[in-house]
C-alpha cells in the first residue's frame, strides 16, 4: 500500500510541476528566439534605438517602450481615480443589498473580450477624437481611455478585498473619535489598505502593458516617438502583434526580442504586486 501511495504522490507532484515547467518553456523559447538578435545588434542599440525599419536592419524599440509608457500612464491617470471612486462607492457609499447586485456586474465586465472594447473604441472614440480634438483619431488618447476601462475591474476587485480585510475596529474607532464618514474613508481606511490598493494598481498596470488586440485596433501603430496624446503610436505588444505574421529571419527574432523586453517588464511588475499583496496579510 505505501508504495502505491508513494507513486500516486509522485504523479501528483509531476502534475503540479506543470505550471513552472510551462513557465520555463516559455522563457526558454522566447529567449532562444530573441536573444541572438539582441546580442547581434547590442542591447543599447536595441533598447535605445529610435528607428524601427526592419527592411533596412534598424531594430530600435525605444519608441515602442515610450509609447507603452505613455499609453499605460494615460490609462492609470484615468483608471486609478475611477477605480478608487468605484471601490469606495461599492464598499462605503451604498447599502449592501445593491452591492450584491453590482459586484457580479463588475465580474461580468471583466469577462468581456478585449476585442469588443477595441471595437467600441474604433467605432465611437476614434471618430470623436478625430473630429473634436484633431489628429488621426487613432491615438494614444483612444488607447488610454479604452485601457482604463479594461483595467477597472482588476483595480476594483482587489482594492475592495483589501478594504474588506481591514479589522472593523479601524472604522468603528475612527467614527467613535468623531471623524466624519469621509474623513474615516480617506484618512484611515484607504491608507490602511494602501499596500493592497497599490498591488491592484500594479496588476492593472501589468494588464494594461500586456494588452494587444484592442490596441492594434485603435492606436494607429505609427513607429515614432510620441509627442502628444493625440499622436498615433505603437506599443511593445502591438509591435509584435502587427508584424509577427509577416516576419522572418532577423525581423522575427527582433519581434521575439521585443517579447523578451515585455516579458521582463511584466514579470517585474507582477513580482512587485505579489510581494506587496503577500505583505499586507500581516
Amino acid at each position, binding site marked *: 500500500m505505501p508504495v502505491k501511495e508513494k507513486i500516486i504522490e509522485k504523479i501528483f507532484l509531476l502534475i503540479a510541476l506543470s505550471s513552472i515547467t510551462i513557465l520555463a518553456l516559455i522563457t526558454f523559447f522566447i529567449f532562444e528566439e530573441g536573444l541572438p538578435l539582441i546580442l547581434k545588434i547590442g542591447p543599447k542599440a536595441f533598447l535605445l534605438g529610435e528607428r524601427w*525599419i526592419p527592411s533596412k536592419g534598424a531594430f530600435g524599440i525605444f519608441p515602442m517602450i515610450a509609447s507603452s509608457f505613455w499609453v499605460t500612464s494615460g490609462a492609470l491617470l484615468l483608471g486609478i481615480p475611477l477605480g478608487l471612486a468605484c471601490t469606495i462607492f461599492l464598499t462605503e457609499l451604498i447599502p449592501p443589498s445593491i452591492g450584491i447586485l453590482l459586484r457580479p456586474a463588475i465580474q461580468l465586465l471583466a469577462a468581456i473580450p478585449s476585442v469588443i472594447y477595441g471595437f467600441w473604441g474604433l467605432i465611437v472614440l476614434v471618430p470623436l477624437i478625430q473630429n473634436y480634438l484633431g489628429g*488621426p483619431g487613432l491615438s494614444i488618447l483612444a488607447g488610454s481611455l479604452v485601457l482604463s476601462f479594461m483595467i477597472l475591474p482588476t483595480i476594483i476587485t482587489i482594492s475592495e478585498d483589501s478594504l474588506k480585510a481591514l479589522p472593523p475596529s479601524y472604522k468603528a474607532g475612527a467614527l467613535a473619535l468623531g471623524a466624519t464618514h469621509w474623513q474615516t474613508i480617506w484618512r484611515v481606511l484607504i491608507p490602511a489598505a494602501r499596500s493592497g490598493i497599490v498591488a491592484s494598481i500594479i496588476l492593472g498596470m501589468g494588464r494594461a502593458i500586456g494588452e494587444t488586440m484592442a490596441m492594434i485596433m485603435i492606436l494607429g501603430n*505609427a513607429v*515614432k516617438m510620441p509627442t502628444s496624446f493625440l499622436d498615433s503610436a505603437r506599443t511593445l505588444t502591438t509591435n509584435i502583434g502587427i508584424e509577427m*505574421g*509577416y516576419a*522572418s529571419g532577423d525581423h522575427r527574432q527582433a519581434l521575439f526580442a521585443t517579447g523578451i523586453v515585455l516579458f521582463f517588464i511584466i514579470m517585474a511588475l507582477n513580482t512587485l504586486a505579489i510581494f506587496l499583496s503577500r505583505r499586507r496579510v500581516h
Partner: protein
Amino acid sequence: MQANSKASLWFLTLILILLTLGCQRSKAGITVAGSTSVEPFAGLLAEEYMSRHPESHIYVQGGGSTAGIEAVITRAAKIGMSSRNLIGEEKKLYTVTIAKDAIAIIVNSKNPIQDLSLNQIREVFAGNIKSWDKLGGASHPIILVTREEGSGTREAFQKFVMGKEDISLEALVQDSNGAVRQVVASNPNAIGYISLGLVNNQIKALKISGVEPNLTDIENGKYTLVRPFLFVFNEEPVGEAKSFLEFVLSPLAQKMLFKEGLVPVLAKIAQE
C-alpha cells in the same frame, strides 16, 4: 457517479483523443497561407472549388507574403500565396502566377484631389509634403496610412513608388488592405495604398499623372504599379494541390478574379 469512475472516464477520453490524433495526422485537405492581399481571392476560389469537390478541404489563411513563403519551405502549408516576386533563397521554389494586381493610391471620397504624379506621391509618403494645400487641396495635414513591414503590398509600393526613400515613420500602420481602406474611408485627410481589387465605393483611387488604374491601362503597361499574385510550391504540385491550381488557372476561376478587380493571367507559369 463515483469519483473513481469519473477519473477513469477522464483517462479514457484522453486516450481516445490521443488515438484520434495519431490517426488524423494525415488530414485531408491543404493549407494555403500567405499574402493578405491574395487571401480574399484565394478564399473565394477555394469556396467555389470546394462546392464543386465536396470531399476536398482547402484552408486559406493570411499571415503575409513572407510568412506564406516560409510556411511552404517548412511545409507548414502546401501552397503559399505571395504578392511579391521571390528573392534570394526563395527563388528555388516553384511558382505560378495566378493573376496580376495593381496597387491603387486611395484617398477619402470627400477629398477633391483626383490626380497626382509619382513624384508627388513619393514626397507625400516620405513625409516631405505634409499638407493637402501643397497639392491643391484644403490646408489640412496629410494623414499617411501604410501597410506593415513584411507585407508584399508594402514592398511593391516601396519598389515602385518610394525607390530609395523611406516611408515616413509618422505613417499610421495597418496590417491588411481592408484595414487601410477602413482608415482612409473614415478620415477625410488620409491617403494610403491598397490592392486595386479591394477598391470599393467607400474610397477613391487616384490617377497617376493622368493614368487611371483600370484594366486597359494596366494591360497596355501605362499604369505601372502592377505586381504578380503568386502561388508558391515546394516542387511541382501533385494531387489535390495540382487540382486546385488547375482550377485557379481555368477560365471560370480567372473570370471570377476579373470580376473582383484583378487582372487575369491564363496559363502563364514562371519556374525560377
